[in-house]
């Protein structure tokens, strides 16, 4: 992010992203909370340079459909410098947790959980695909 913006200002923007489910920041925040970690620990877990934490948080969550999921993971990984496989795992894990949580509160139909479970099963295959692709542009 440009130097003219202070760290505090950026923190406010990133915090807002972490409260909106459309943004990756919310996935990072949920995972951190679920596992008693700091968000920076989660960022390091997916091998993203800490200096790119803000831009990673401000990316949109990858689309769910199989057609786009790998493509989106790859774009985010290329852009933020994180590990695509680790990011894919993290997003899937959070989705599965979310689906389980929603199911227990009766918010969603059962097939959401089934989708999350199916994603887990296909994880190895998908990650292989993601890892095999090259990056394009860095921030």
């Amino acid at each position, binding site marked *: *992010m*440009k130097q*003219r*913006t*202070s760290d*505090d*200002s*950026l923190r*406010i*923007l990133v915090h*807002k*992203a972490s409260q*909106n489910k*459309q*943004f*990756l920041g919310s996935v990072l925040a949920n995972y951190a909370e679920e596992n008693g970690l700091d968000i920076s620990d989660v960022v390091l877990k997916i091998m993203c340079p800490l200096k790119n934490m*803000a*831009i*990673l*948080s*401000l*990316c*949109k*969550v*990858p*689309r769910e459909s199989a057609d*786009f999921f790998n493509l*989106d993971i790859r*774009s*985010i990984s290329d*852009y*933020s410098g994180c590990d695509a496989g680790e990011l894919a795992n993290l997003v899937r894990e959070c989705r599965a947790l979310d689906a389980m949580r929603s199911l227990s509160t009766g918010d969603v139909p059962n097939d959401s959980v089934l989708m999350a479970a199916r994603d887990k099963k296909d994880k190895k295959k998908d990650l292989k695909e993601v890892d095999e692709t090259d990056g394009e542009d860095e*921030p």
Partner: protein
Amino acid sequence: MSELSDKALDLHKRLIAGDPTATARLAQLLFPRLISHLRIKFGGEHERDYAESASDALMEYLADPTKFDPNKAHLDTYLKYAATRDMMNLKAKVARRSERIELVDPVELPEPDGNNKEHRGKDPVLQGLLDSADEEELTQLVQRVFTDGIDREIARLIVDDVRETVVYTEVLGIGNLPVDEQRSVVKRHKDRVKARLKRIIGLKK
């Protein structure tokens, strides 16, 4: 079109197309500029408020980019306007909370004959029209019809039910005038814009 507007438009298209990094790229491009814009426009040391307002404006757009119509404005202009509006709303909220300004509409002045009944509080006709209008449609209507920047900001404030004179004073840039004169100028502008709003919303129905 400037290089910045070109870049922003390109990223807007990528965002609409589903590129998950477009949000972060747009934030990188525009967030610092929104903060600078607010800093220049409002002056003083309100960095946190600038960040809040710029973030709100940006996040609102990023969460639903279809609200922005590239045929009507440049994205940077659109967001500057939204951030300014958020900043003014924030200031109004702070002012209300600290009770430094009157809670009743101070803009409404008594009529010369002393009968100020119709001017007290909300304008019931306009309020009825605003209540029954679709919010999104109203926003677009204001954007389209009010070509003058100041009038458009005043119209937005009226639609948002912002009633504090101090906010209108800032939009009009008349903070240097005596308070009585400020009120009178603000009232004149508000009345004119209200009349126009009534007309356009009425015609639309």
